[in-house]
């Protein structure tokens, strides 16, 4: 290979560069496990609402690599290669890049939607770690061949890495993942909510030390904003997250399509368990639904969105009686025929518990005709002022965007201490939604259930 850097064209970042010396990244990109991400869309069914949202975990992962590379370069320039921070970056930078690239290899088809259908699959970080170290994956060999330890890369992805600031680049409230997906999702959906000043934000990053609130434990070296230089772009990022969540990620039409597929996937699982899925269903897809997603890594790797959508084409054409619901939901999804009705309910935990219990009591036969969707969302999680120290520190360490004066020994403080915008968006008044989606034939049950409430919740059908 010549010394010319390899580049990928990208609509968000322009050119994504792989520098000479980092050819191991090309080897990782060429693995089956990474190429599979071409067949997993970033936003599941958002393309039903926003037709442009066809981008995949593959191009997002390249974007995360790009942002992570830029953060590493900036920190190395800032602290110098001979500083203790620079030496850590030199020692582990390649592992951080690998982790940035591979962080989503554990995502299943339809991403978070499948995790909602089958809670046992709600562990994509663990799955990503296994993809990186597992004996059935080609990734550990590829890493080893290039002088990298798979366990280190897996620890960074799994948030178990000892050098916290390097882990922060891949996984924190101010990470390359979030910096890429907000811009990318905004671009491909066509909305303008996800926009913030990435250039300025990356250049306003530095290190600082977060001190535990008890005497126990040493301070953690963390990725921070430099003084107030990056505050406004971080506020923009937070606003972007808030607006993208309400307008895109939790959009009621998108969630209607999610409810549609949740019912379809559960029905496919039920039929698979009864041995009644249409015979020509792909064996890997059959196995996946039979085990409700809890399959071993070799099967997991073979299940992607084209495989499941292809199965839906097959299912839609079945005229057998046991396949009535499966065929209806498959055909309606493929042709974007809206079949689910929606009812907005008073969004409290108690109301959700009551509706869910009453709806579940209607029995398993009707279970795949409805979906109760309770969304509570916080763009930024602030610790309570009065928490016991360990718990408060845990919340700060987990969720806060931090700020320091730029020296790595300077104290890292949560940004909400200086930003009213962070304090407001981290406060108790946050968006909440409780929506019931159901098939028209199920409406009579909804009416009956509502009558069981002493004071029916104010609601309207849509």
């Amino acid at each position, binding site marked *: 290979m010549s010394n010319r850097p390899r580049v990928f064209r990208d609509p968000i970042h322009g050119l994504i560069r792989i520098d000479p010396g980092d050819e191991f990244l090309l080897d990782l990109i060429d693995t089956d496990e990474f190429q599979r991400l071409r067949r997993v869309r970033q936003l599941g069914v958002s393309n039903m609402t926003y037709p442009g949202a066809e981008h995949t975990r593959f191009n997002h992962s390249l974007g995360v690599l790009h942002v992570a590379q830029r953060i590493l370069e900036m920190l190395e320039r800032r602290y110098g290669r001979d500083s203790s921070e620079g030496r850590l970056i030199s020692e582990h930078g390649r592992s951080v890049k690998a982790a940035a690239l591979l962080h989503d290899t554990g995502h299943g088809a339809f991403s978070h939607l499948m995790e909602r259908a089958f*809670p046992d699959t709600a562990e994509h970080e663990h799955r990503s770690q296994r993809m990186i170290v597992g004996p059935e994956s080609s990734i550990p060999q590829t890493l080893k061949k290039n002088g990298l330890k798979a366990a280190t890369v897996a620890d960074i992805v799994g948030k178990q890495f000892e050098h916290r600031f390097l882990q922060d680049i891949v996984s924190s409230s101010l990470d390359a993942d979030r910096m890429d997906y907000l811009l990318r999702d905004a671009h491909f959906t066509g909305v303008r909510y996800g926009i913030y000043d990435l250039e300025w934000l990356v250049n306003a990053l530095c290190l600082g030390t977060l001190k535990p609130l008890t005497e126990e434990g040493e301070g953690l070296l963390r990725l921070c904003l430099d003084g107030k230089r990056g505050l406004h772009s971080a506020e923009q990022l937070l606003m972007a997250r808030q607006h993208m969540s309400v307008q895109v990620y939790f959009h009621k039409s998108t969630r209607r399509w999610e409810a549609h597929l949740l019912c379809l996937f559960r029905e496919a699982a039920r039929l698979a368990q009864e041995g009644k899925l249409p015979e020509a269903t792909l064996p890997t897809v059959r196995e996946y639904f039979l085990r409700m997603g809890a399959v071993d890594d070799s099967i997991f790797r073979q299940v992607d969105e084209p495989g499941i959508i292809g199965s839906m084409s097959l299912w839609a054409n079945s005229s057998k009686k046991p396949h009535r619901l499966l065929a209806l939901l498959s055909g309606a999804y493929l042709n974007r025929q809206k079949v689910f009705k929606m009812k907005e309910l008073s969004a409290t935990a108690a109301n959700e518990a009551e509706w869910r219990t009453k709806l579940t009591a209607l029995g398993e036969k009707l279970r795949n005709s409805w979906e109760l969707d309770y969304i509570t969302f916080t763009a930024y999680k602030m610790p309570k002022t*009065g928490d016991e120290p360990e718990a408060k520190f845990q919340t700060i360490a987990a969720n806060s965007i931090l700020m320091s004066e730029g020296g790595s020994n300077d104290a890292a403080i949560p940004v909400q201490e200086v930003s009213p915008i962070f304090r407001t968006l981290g406060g108790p008044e946050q968006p909440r939604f409780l929506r019931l989606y159901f098939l028209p034939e199920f409406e009579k049950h909804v009416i009956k259930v509502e009558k069981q409430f002493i004071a029916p919740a104010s609601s309207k059908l849509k």
Partner: protein
Amino acid sequence: MNSILIIGQLLEAVATVEGRKKFQKLIHILQHFGVPFGFRFGYLHYGPYSSELDSQLESFESEGLIKEEAVSAGPYQSYRFTAQESLRSLVKKLVGVTPLEFAALAQELNAKSAQELEAISTIYYLQTSGKQGSELKASFCALKPKFASVYEERLKSARDLEKKHSKAA
């Protein structure tokens, strides 16, 4: 069943939980044993931690379902969680008197200190990430140097709990 009802059953079984960290670890371990709370946990400074659980506890408190009251814990303030009457009534109305599955495990865990639970839940978390044997020990001791000297003891507790309470056992 949704998480608030299971938390209601949990508080029925143990009466009170002292400390937010302890609540996190208790729920992580119970979920590891199969209690379907449905929370996603990541790894943090004090071990497995779910920001979803943290947010939900806050919203349950704001709805008056659980009570979180300050209690003195040496030089610091800790927080005691109990079920409010509204949660007890909700559980009674929707679940009846069915006790929490793993109630005995919950009681046994609640009798342990928050630090013990932190070590045990960290062991389970690392195991789920695929770490076993010497790799598990190395990872545990690197992440939790303060517990390195009691690693074997905590590993034994974690295994004993699994022997005693796993569904398969």
